[in-house]
């Protein structure tokens, strides 16, 4: 039983959702997006953590685009997050303090790195993809490490100063502006991504995930579709990285590190891959648990996250949202 593959459970989930793209906003989705707005007023002391959760959630959603929708396993997605963070950070350090253009530049730079990488990733088997993404991530880390005169190396890039957004929202210690800014950007990007995955293009990606050999038969250019979504995912990861750089006013070399890529995978799988919201839910749970547990002892935290990962793989396919879906379909006939 435990050997059933992920693709089987994903295909079952998407069969439940719908067969045709359906772009209408459901009530549950609207409620979901009201939660961070509510959190802003209810937990004013946790706004800094809240903005980090939102940004990491967006980062996880970008991985979901290639992993959950296109079926590409990446071990180096943090590369694009880091590239975006450094792009926005360096821009601000060298005298361009406007935040929105900073985001745009970060997205373009990350996409420019992601596009050539996508050619390497699209070729080859799962294992080759794993290793290419892992290798690219490690290479970029090494570059940032050795190019300390530009990036600050292991000390990180400090002194990222950002102008008030539209001349009004000044970044403050309490994280008020950071929270509102992060929420607005994450929501806007999410709406765009939601449209993309519900489009025929998004549907063809799911087709590729389920049967890459059959898709050319109905005229879908598999390699080009995968390259496109990989580049989009890189750009979104870049935006998330830029948001981190701007809201924390600092870029650490760990933004590029392998542990970040691995944690990201964990968040996405925890929340449930292939359903956009999984990344946001997973990031929120992961980071709240991390905030709480690593406050007790960081070593415990690492042990438990490893433990849960093993448990999820062996017993709980589809993560939390997948589990809820299964529960719902099981309860429905009885009603």
């Amino acid at each position, binding site marked *: 039983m435990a050997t059933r*593959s992920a693709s089987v459970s994903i295909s079952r989930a998407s069969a439940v959702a719908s067969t045709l793209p359906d772009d209408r906003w459901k009530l549950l989705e609207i409620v979901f997006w009201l939660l961070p707005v509510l959190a802003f007023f209810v937990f004013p002391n946790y706004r800094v953590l809240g903005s980090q959760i939102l940004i990491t959630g967006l980062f996880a959603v970008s991985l979901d685009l290639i992993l959950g929708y296109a079926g590409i396993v990446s071990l180096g997605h943090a590369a694009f997050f880091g590239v975006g963070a450094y792009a926005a950070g360096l821009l601000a350090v060298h005298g361009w303090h406007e935040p929105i253009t900073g985001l745009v530049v970060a997205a373009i730079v990350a996409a420019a790195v992601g596009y050539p990488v996508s050619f390497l990733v699209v070729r080859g088997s799962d294992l080759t993809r794993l290793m290419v993404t892992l*290798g690219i991530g490690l290479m970029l880390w*090494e570059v940032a490490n050795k190019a300390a005169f530009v990036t600050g190396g292991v000390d990180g890039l400090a002194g990222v100063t950002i102008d008030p957004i539209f001349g009004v929202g000044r970044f403050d210690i309490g994280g008020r502006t950071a929270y509102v800014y992060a929420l607005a950007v994450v929501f806007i990007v999410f709406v765009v991504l939601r449209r993309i995955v519900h489009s025929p293009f998004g549907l063809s990606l799911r087709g590729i995930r389920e049967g890459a050999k059959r898709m050319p038969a109905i005229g879908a250019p598999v390699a080009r579709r995968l390259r496109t979504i990989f580049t989009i995912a890189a750009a979104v990861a870049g935006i998330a990285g830029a948001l981190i750089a701007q809201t924390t006013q600092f870029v650490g070399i760990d933004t590029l590190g392998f542990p970040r890529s691995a944690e990201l995978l964990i968040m996405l799988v925890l929340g449930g891959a292939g359903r956009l919201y999984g990344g946001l839910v997973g990031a929120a749970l992961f980071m709240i648990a991390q905030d709480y547990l690593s406050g007790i002892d960081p070593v415990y935290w690492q042990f438990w996250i490893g433990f849960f990962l093993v448990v999820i793989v062996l017993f709980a396919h589809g993560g939390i949202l997948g589990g809820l879906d299964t529960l719902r379909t099981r309860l429905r006939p009885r009603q």
Partner: protein
Amino acid sequence: MIGNVIGVLFDGLAYGSLLFIIAVGLSVTLGLMNFVNLAHGTFAMIGGYVCVLLMTRAGVPFLATLPIAFAAAALVGLVLEVTLYRRLYKASPLDQVLFSIGIVFMSIAMATYWFGASQQPVALPSYLRGQVHLPGLDLGVYRLFLIVVVAALTLVLQYLLDRTRFGSQVRASVDNATAAAGLGIDVNRVFALTFALGSGLAGLGGALGIDVLGLDPTFPLKYIVYFLLVVSVGGSGTMKGPLIAALILGVFDVAGKYYLPQIGGFVIYALMVILLIVFPAGLYARRA
């Protein structure tokens, strides 16, 4: 200058032999059983800690700790294979990756909890320290020892796989598990023993490698790329492929860090990406 080149080559070979002995088990799990096991370094770490603990707390001589390190890592490998790994042989690569990352995180946390986050020192016996002086050339005794040990082990392994009953059962099981089972081979048992053997060798390599690779709780993450690289470049099914790959890798890495210290580890990652670009499907044919 020439002596310098030979010295780097020699260090590279010693380093490569270590990588080989650690990664050879992975070449079976990854290459033949199709299991993406990122936790392979954990077994090497177990061997390393067993060696250090026996030496510092129980006063066991270094050479005597090596078989115990092998046995301990093999035992842990056997238990994990029977209880957990076996259930995931047919799972998707993503599941295998997540599962093995989980194992890595747990092992790092446990090692930090029990032994602290610092590097573990190893006091080699005096007869393994120092250098052999040849005309115009100084070779480290311990590195010479490493090369000899690995060469001997390679011959033993080759014999085990090629000439013994167990070896032919392994080859039959990985070629076609169904047919092998039909012939009365207990495939599960063969896989479990093979996994244990690979883990044991990794443990032995971890113990031998404390002096060269270091030993701290992040060991499984730090060297993951090297092990994967040995396997994917070397191919599987033979002993020769991973051996040659490991030696090349060792020489390149040592030479890169010696001659181009400003770009350091970059050489090895670049090599990896280039090899994967040139051979997009991997150097070995992955069974469907």
